[in-house]
């Protein structure tokens, strides 16, 4: 009878497992990569410690402008001493809890909407009521809230308002444009194509100029339209063209069979779109739609050019104050962090959604 020889359990060589193995595979595999790693590490070593020192160690956190100038590092005081103006603009100081509350409502709604199982009719109503309440909080005038004119609205609430209302209004308009573009009626199709290509071909700034300077000319004598509304109209018109293209992509992805089945059941155009085609098409294009929301959020920063006091302009106002002049870096970094947090969480969510949807629910 043969003896079964127990082979010694062979372990992999020590240089290919554990942390050394990982470094070998990922940082030092091959001559070229090794050189690259060394060069990159050198570069990081030159840049990161001084940056760290500037930002955290030598920096001034809560001082006056004078004291800041004497500090060798970053002057974060420009933010800590001015954040209320940066965030809320000219909104009356004691009433600033109102825009704050409005923003909290918005964040709450957004957070709740992240879970797709919550996407039912009650949520839509919640959004409508929420948006309405936000507008009410900002404007005031009833329920013993003092009235605050829209000329005093500014900062982060203004940015969010322009983005959220912009997308909300642009979405239905974009859907209609997309349907029109795919229509068999040449007249309607041409009108939609002209609109979409025209708006997509020009920079947002030209639309902002158009709406802030030319829109008043369109209106009869005596009718004025406030600045925020003008910017909002431009943003809505702009975003709707991009949404139209996104939705058109979804419509193109629908198979002919769905249209035919609906037709053969006797459904007319409106019912076919509402019950069969749009529910499917709009769901397919949720990720690119979120992408558009991110773009709209970033694009609101352009209203600084037509002198609306969004987050960017309030910051610039602070910087034009002699006490805080010259600390643009710090102030802009702060704003950049805010925008980054917003956009990054949205794009992360979009990626998560895309994964979920491609897995097929």
């Amino acid at each position, binding site marked *: 009878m043969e003896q079964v020889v127990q082979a010694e359990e062979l372990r992999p060589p020590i240089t290919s497992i554990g942390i050394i193995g990982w470094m070998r595979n990922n940082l030092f595999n091959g001559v070229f990569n090794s050189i690259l790693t060394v060069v990159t590490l050198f570069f990081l070593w030159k840049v990161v410690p001084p940056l760290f020192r500037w930002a955290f160690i030598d920096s001034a956190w809560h001082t006056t402008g004078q004291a800041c100038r004497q500090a060798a590092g970053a002057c974060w005081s420009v933010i800590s001493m001015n954040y209320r103006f940066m965030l809320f603009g000219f909104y009356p100081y004691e009433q600033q809890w109102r825009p704050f509350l409005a923003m909290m409502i918005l964040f709450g709604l957004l957070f709740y909407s992240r879970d797709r199982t919550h996407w039912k009719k009650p949520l839509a109503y919640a959004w409508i009521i929420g948006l309405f309440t936000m507008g009410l909080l900002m404007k005031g005038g009833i329920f013993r809230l003092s009235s605050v004119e829209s000329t005093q609205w500014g900062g982060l609430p203004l940015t969010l308002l322009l983005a959220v209302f912009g997308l909300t209004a642009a979405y239905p308009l974009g859907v209609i444009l997309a349907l029109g573009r795919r229509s068999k009626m040449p007249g309607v199709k041409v009108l939609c194509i002209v609109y979409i290509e025209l708006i997509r071909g020009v920079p947002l700034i030209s639309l902002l100029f158009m709406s802030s300077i030319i829109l008043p000319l369109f209106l009869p004598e005596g009718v004025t339209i406030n600045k925020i509304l003008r910017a909002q109209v431009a943003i809505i018109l702009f975003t709707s063209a991009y949404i139209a293209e996104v939705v058109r992509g979804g419509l193109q992805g629908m198979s002919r*069979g769905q249209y035919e089945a609906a*037709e053969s*059941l*006797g*459904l007319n155009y409106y019912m076919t779109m509402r019950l069969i085609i749009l529910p499917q098409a709009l769901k397919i294009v949720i990720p690119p739609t979120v992408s558009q929301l991110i773009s709209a959020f970033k694009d609101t920063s352009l209203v600084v050019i037509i002198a609306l006091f969004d987050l960017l302009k309030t910051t610039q106002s602070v910087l034009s104050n002699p006490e805080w002049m010259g600390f643009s870096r710090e102030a802009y970094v702060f704003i950049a962090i805010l925008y980054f947090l917003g956009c990054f969480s949205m794009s992360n969510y979009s990626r998560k959604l895309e994964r979920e949807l491609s897995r*097929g629910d």
Partner: protein
Amino acid sequence: MNLEKKASEELMIEFIDVHKWFGEFHVLQGINLTVSRQERIVICGPSGSGKSTLIRCINRLEEHQRGRIIVDGIELINNIKNIEKIRAEVGMVFQHFNLFPHLNIVENLALGPIWVRKVPKKEAEETAMYYLEKVHIAEQARKYPGQLSGGQQQRVAIARSLCMNPKVMLFDEPTSALDPEMIKEVLDVMIELAQEGMTMIVVTHEMGFARSVAHRVLFMDFGKIVEGNTPEEFFANPEHERTKLFLSQILH
């Protein structure tokens, strides 16, 4: 099975010298056809012969350019009222089922009655369950199309058309997209339908079904109805060369 081998005398569908072009391509070249109430017709032929186009003209999924089509006394012209009336009486089953993936089975079936016939929701759902029982698939009522097999989906599609109480059922290659083991369950449902006296026009390659169920088998080629006869005569004594060629290709 005991199928009525004699259809009624009433005319259900009539094609009078119907022509259709797709651009330059003359897809229907002078079709003359009559279908009586309770008659069952099978149309076969090579691909591109126009057989699908022919039945799709009946419910106006395709528009014919010359000639007349009359369905149950209503003429198919550019009149929305006529088209709607005809579509309400004609049910269609597609090769690729075309169920609505975002609705569950009952919702798929109840959609037509609720939105076209303006039936209250409860009644529509009861009708839906009745027809789901008929096609032997009631237990899947709350599932979604994506969760069903091809054969199950096609039976649901048949039930969906039946919910509208059609007078004619059109079948456009109903089993061509199915795996072989599921063809029988769909054909069985179609046979039951036939037993109840439904007027049916079926485009298919299932010659066994044609033999046992059809009153007439028509052969189409190059946009024309080449010949048509009772199944016995058709399979035993095909008259034209093209028919013989086609039959030899599919009855190997």
